[in-house]
């Protein structure tokens, strides 16, 4: 039987300085905090980080950025992280913004083996500056190259030993997309079950996309409810 389970430390071992790392999650839900801690502990730097947002100050990928491990951030919105906005404004990190759904499509295209996507989002805005344009019928489109990474870190609610993944509620977000779009895909899961225990119809990401599975033995406090967002 296939068994991709491995410790977080061993799973992260191949990551080296200067690599690109995609990290799933939208806010706390779906952010792979255990793998991020392992990456922080390993001490790699000069990373290109790809994530929807940068979590919040002192949490998740923000810890990597605050520790000076990230050279470049490819993202959609930093509205909840004034610390990272400050680092961007001071020039400590380079930040490239994309419309959220376009970032998702770039990653999807990367995972699907496509070269690029073409869309008209932002066609009448400064977003078109320095971009390749393409005439499609009677409309202009912006060509957005597909996006892949060396490493993807994703979070699942359940995995089996073969790497089949199931996400939960709004913790799905970018995870299934990123799980297709990197050379080394590492998934952490809150529950790891035996092969055959997940029904084929419930699996969101087929195990063939996933290289390594890390069981989360105990949920870190970071996975919990952020009380300042409780209304």
């Amino acid at each position, binding site marked *: 039987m296939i068994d991709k389970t491995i410790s977080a430390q061993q799973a992260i071992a191949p990551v080296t300085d200067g690599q690109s790392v995609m990290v799933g999650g*939208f*806010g706390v*839900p779906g952010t792979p905090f255990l793998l991020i801690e392992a990456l922080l502990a390993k001490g790699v730097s000069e990373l290109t980080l790809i994530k929807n947002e940068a979590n919040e100050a002192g949490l998740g990928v923000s810890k990597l950025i605050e520790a000076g491990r990230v050279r470049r951030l490819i993202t959609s919105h930093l509205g909840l992280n004034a610390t990272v906005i400050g680092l961007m404004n001071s020039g400590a990190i380079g930040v490239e913004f994309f419309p959220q759904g376009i970032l998702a499509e770039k990653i999807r295209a990367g995972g699907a083996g496509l070269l690029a996507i073409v869309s008209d989002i932002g066609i009448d805005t400064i977003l078109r500056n320095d971009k390749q344009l393409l005439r499609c019928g009677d409309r202009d489109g912006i060509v957005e190259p597909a996006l892949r990474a060396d490493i993807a870190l994703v979070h699942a609610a359940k995995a089996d030993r073969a790497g089949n993944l199931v996400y939960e509620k*709004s913790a*799905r977000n970018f995870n299934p997309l990123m799980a297709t779009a990197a050379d080394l895909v590492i998934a952490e899961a809150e529950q790891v079950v035996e092969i055959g225990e997940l029904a084929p119809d419930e699996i969101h990401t087929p195990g063939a996309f996933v290289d390594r599975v890390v069981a989360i033995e105990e949920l870190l406090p970071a996975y919990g*409810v952020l009380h300042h967002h409780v209304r």
Partner: protein
Amino acid sequence: MSVDAKTKIARRAAREIQAGQVINLGIGIPTLIPSFLPPDLPLTMHSENGIVGAGTISAPGKADRNLIDAGGTYITVVPGASFCDSALSFSLVRGGRLDVSFLGALEVSQQGDLANWIIPGKFAPGIGGAMELAQKARRLIITTTHATRKGEPKILRSCTLPLTARACVDLIITELAVISVQPDGLVLEEIAAETELEIVLQLTEAPLVVGAALKRF
């Protein structure tokens, strides 16, 4: 902005939602809209982070660590809700399935151009879902204060800030007025009960055609 102004805008905006619609509520004033909707109105609330069928804010003590809206607030879902990934979530927006998007504004022009995502050198948190929502929702309703905190008009002849999208706005709802964007300019449809026409005109840089049947709200 006073709570009263926000409440007035949200209450008026709620009246634009029709049964059966798929809607998205932006950050800020739009999130206040649900409390002014009839509780039995059937509608589908979309949230950018992959929720089709978002419900209300979680009851105290009931927050689910895996269930937030795009602004980070813990919420519930309604019966019939579904979850999806971020690509499918924006397929719904760009593909034309979103009936109404409610967004805030820094500036709106008489052509219906919207600027709400960047003030160069001052405010640049990123684009998020704003461009896709503004450009692709079937109907875009702007909920905003009529003027800036300094009292400068936000409804202009043309936007000075970088655009979110061109000619995308259908309706502007402020604490003072309801203004529709027509092919030949802005039409003042309603003014607030507490204000006067002169004040609205004074605080609006863009020319306003006063609607034939100007109503109070």
